[in-house]
């Protein structure tokens, strides 16, 4: 308690000084500084109110002798009055100063003074004597016409901005950069006032003719903050303009999304999809510049987490939402696919961007083989044209969960000899870093496992232990090795689809899951599989039911 009170005193001194410098915030410097500090000052006001409301007027003045000056100075700063709830909290603080039963004339005078300040805050700073006289003469009070006046001013400014944007050549009617910058500063405290939305939108969308950015960064930050906290609703075009004009805002939006994903329940793709759609990023990413930045941030996240499966899953969901949004976009404004993936060969991009739903089921195998060939070509091609080598190709491939997750299923479903192309693709997907030899070994291993699984699928009775042996899994090999993860997923897939699979499913899982990490991995796998089946509609009722039950049980275990 004592520490808080010391903190408050320090803060008090700091803000008293600031307010004195800001005065009525009529210069560029004071306006900028005020804008930067608005949120913190409001917090300070809140803390002050919490302290003041416990004291009576005399005690307050003993503790903070200059409190009346502080509050009065704040009231003279229109930026502070315009911001969020600051005017309310200021009023509450002022009310605390009133003496319930004034003992002498000084206290009475103080009460009068407080009343005066309250009245000043509310009577709206008058300007334009003529206008004031006119409205008074008609019998109107500010409450009658201020909302209408604000609306007229906002619309008039917005249309002036639009005209400025369109009339490139008419220099007489151009808005000067100073005026634009000034407007953007003034909007910072007003962002969450709905009446001002048309002006905010116009400022974002109409970028005038100067080569460099004129609007103040505080403006962009304030708008972005309001968008992320859902305190303002702007059309998509305005949001895209914001993110194109002010890169830090886009980055902040992505970080905000990451934070939400991290703090939400693990391994629930449906929720991830909700968050992603909610963030408006997929729609914005229809603009290639935004897509590139978003993709880059995903790549960084992937590198930092060493290829965490959750990040891969998020990227896949994002791509899906993005492609849906792209589909809805106006076809005339569509950018060429190349602009989204500038470093990829066009043929590979074209194939990967196909939605499995648009390809006849019978052709899926063929498509996967084609993808494999193209990728292999890109990976094994070490000439100057290729960028980044195998990791780049892998990063590209993992975007497309529809295809990437399908490889194992396709291999298991066919009774024929597993095609080398698919084996390669599967090995590549699970460990992109492997050298040729290592990958060849993995392919051989997988082929063997597939063979065993095929044989077992024909037998009438299955046992979990047999399955494990067939997979060559024993407790001595490092369970985290990529090949092991691959084989785990093959087994799980098998168990979900094979006729007798449901009987041994739980046993298989128990044998597999020695650690909590692996259990999470299995949960992730099941969640992802169900999500994909839902979307592509390739579920069989039995498999689906089994998967759902297993998922539920495992979730309660961790």
């Amino acid at each position, binding site marked *: 308690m004592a520490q808080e009170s010391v903190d408050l005193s320090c803060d008090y001194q700091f803000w008293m000084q600031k307010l004195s410098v800001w005065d009525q915030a*009529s210069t560029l410097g004071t306006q900028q500084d005020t804008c930067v500090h608005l949120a913190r000052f409001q917090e300070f006001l809140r803390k002050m109110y919490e302290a003041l*409301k416990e004291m009576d007027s005399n005690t307050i003045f003993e503790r903070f002798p200059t409190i009346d000056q502080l509050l009065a100075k704040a009231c003279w700063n*229109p*930026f502070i*009055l*315009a911001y969020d709830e600051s*005017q*309310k909290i200021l*009023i*509450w603080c002022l*009310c605390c100063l*009133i*003496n*319930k*039963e004034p003992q002498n004339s000084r206290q009475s005078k103080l*009460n*009068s003074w407080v*009343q*005066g300040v*309250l*009245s000043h805050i*509310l*009577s*709206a*700073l008058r*300007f*334009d004597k*003529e*206008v004031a*006289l*006119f*409205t*008074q*003469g*008609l*019998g109107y*009070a500010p*409450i*009658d*016409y*201020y*909302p*209408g*006046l*604000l609306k*007229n*001013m906002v*619309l*008039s*400014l917005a249309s*002036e901005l639009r005209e400025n944007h369109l009339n490139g050549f008419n220099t007489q009617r151009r808005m000067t950069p100073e*005026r634009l910058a*000034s*407007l953007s*500063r*003034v909007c910072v405290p*007003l962002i969450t*006032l709905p*009446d*001002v939305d048309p002006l905010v939108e116009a400022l974002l969308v109409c970028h005038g003719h100067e080569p460099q950015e004129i609007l103040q960064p505080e403006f962009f930050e304030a708008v972005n903050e309001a968008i992320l906290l859902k305190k303002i609703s702007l059309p998509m075009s305005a949001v895209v303009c914001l993110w194109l004009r002010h890169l830090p805002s886009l980055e902040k939006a992505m970080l905000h999304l990451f934070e939400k994903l991290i703090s939400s329940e693990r391994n629930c793709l449906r929720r991830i999809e909700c968050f992603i759609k909610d963030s408006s990023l997929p729609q914005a990413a229809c603009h290639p510049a935004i897509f590139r930045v978003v993709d880059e941030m995903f790549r960084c996240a992937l590198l930092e987490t060493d290829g965490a499966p959750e990040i891969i899953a998020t990227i896949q969901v994002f791509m899906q939402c993005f492609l849906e949004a792209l589909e809805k976009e106006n076809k005339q404004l569509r950018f060429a696919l190349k602009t989204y993936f500038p470093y990829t060969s066009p043929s590979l991009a074209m194939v990967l961007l196909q939605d499995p739903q648009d390809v006849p089921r019978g052709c899926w195998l063929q498509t996967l083989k084609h993808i494999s060939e193209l990728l292999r070509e890109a990976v094994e091609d070490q000439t100057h044209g290729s960028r980044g080598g195998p990791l780049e190709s892998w990063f590209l491939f993992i975007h497309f969960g529809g295809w990437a997750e399908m490889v194992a299923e396709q291999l298991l479903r066919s009774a024929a000899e597993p095609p080398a192309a698919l084996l390669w693709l599967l090995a590549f997907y699970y460990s992109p870093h492997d050298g040729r030899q290592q990958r060849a070994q993995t392919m051989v291993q997988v082929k063997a496992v597939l063979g065993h699984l095929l044989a077992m699928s024909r037998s009438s009775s299955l046992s979990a232990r047999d399955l494990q042996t067939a997979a060559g899994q024993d407790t001595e090999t490092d369970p985290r090795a990529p090949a092991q993860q691959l084989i785990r997923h093959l087994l799980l897939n098998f168990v979900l689809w094979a006729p007798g699979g449901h009987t041994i499913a739980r046993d298989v899982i128990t044998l597999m899951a020695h650690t909590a990490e692996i259990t999470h991995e299995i949960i992730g796998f099941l969640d992802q599989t169900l999500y994909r089946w839902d979307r592509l509609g390739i579920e069989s009722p039995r498999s689906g039911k089994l998967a759902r039950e297993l998922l539920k049980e495992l979730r309660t275990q961790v």
Partner: protein
Amino acid sequence: MESLLQHLDRFSELLAVSRTAHVRTWDPVTVRRALQWARYLRHIHRRFGRHGPIRTALERRLHNQWRQEGVFGRGPVPGLASFQALGHCDVLLSLRLLENQALGDAARHHLVQQLFPGPGVPDADEETLQESLARLARCGSAVHMLRFNGYRKNLNLQEDSLMKTQADLLLERLQEVGKAEAEGPARFLSSLWERLPQNNFLKVIAVALLQPPLSPRPQEESEPSIHKTPGEGSQALVHWLLGNSEVFAAFCRALPAGLLTLVTSRHPALSPVYLGLLTDWGQRLHYDLQKGIWVGTESQDVPWEELHNRFQSLCQAPPPLKDKVLTALETCKAQDGDFEVPGLSIWTDLLLALRSGAFRKRQVLGLSPGLSSV
């Protein structure tokens, strides 16, 4: 119903008193009661503002009040000034009391407590008084900041936001006054003319005459039976201007040519009077042989340039106004003797100037030199 109307009467009195020193006698109970009445009436307005019979009754009562107080001739209404005001009568009362330093200590304390109870559970249905007041403060700051940091006066007055707002208010008030009393608007406008800064008032009238027909306020859209014809306010203005030649002369003198042309195009009833004025002004000028220009005899005479300006602007208006003007000029020229030589009749000279101006304009625009239109 009668009790509601009595409530209205008493509240209107209260509102009027709230500005005077009489509040010195108010105690906390009075303050509380006043605020309660305000809240009640606001509630009534919200619930029954669209409902025919109740709304009509309330309006009629208000109009009676105004008539009794003989308000239209004297000045702004001391109590409730409009039906719309009921929608925020609690804010109105609160502000008046807060501004009134005559309020006693106990009453003041109680008022402040009532208005600003502090953070708490917000009312789910209606915005609390505290919220309304905070919003007003915020709105006021917004207007202030935009005014001093972004607003620039629009040279086309009818598009200027400050002008438009004043014009909207004038039209609204005229409509309400017109409902209260048939001769209301005329007397009201005359009293405004005497009390308000005249230059601004004239501009506002011009802008009001150019506004698109008043759209109904959102909350009244569902009411088809309310007798609101768009343009009633404008009609009242035109009627008044035509009935007050001194005002109309000032109107035509003070406002720029372009604006007057727009106004006369929109309200044809004004054009004969406007033209009449211009003719009068023209006839006061005589030709100075030495200087070779038309001059006036007294300092307040309208100079040639201004006269020319106005006629030029009128000739650029769409027909039928343009044709009327030309006809008038031709008629005047004929009455003067139908001279073709300059320096003898101002009307000849004007027509010559207008024609050559038009000719030059057509040249600039690359059109064939057709003189038939002028």
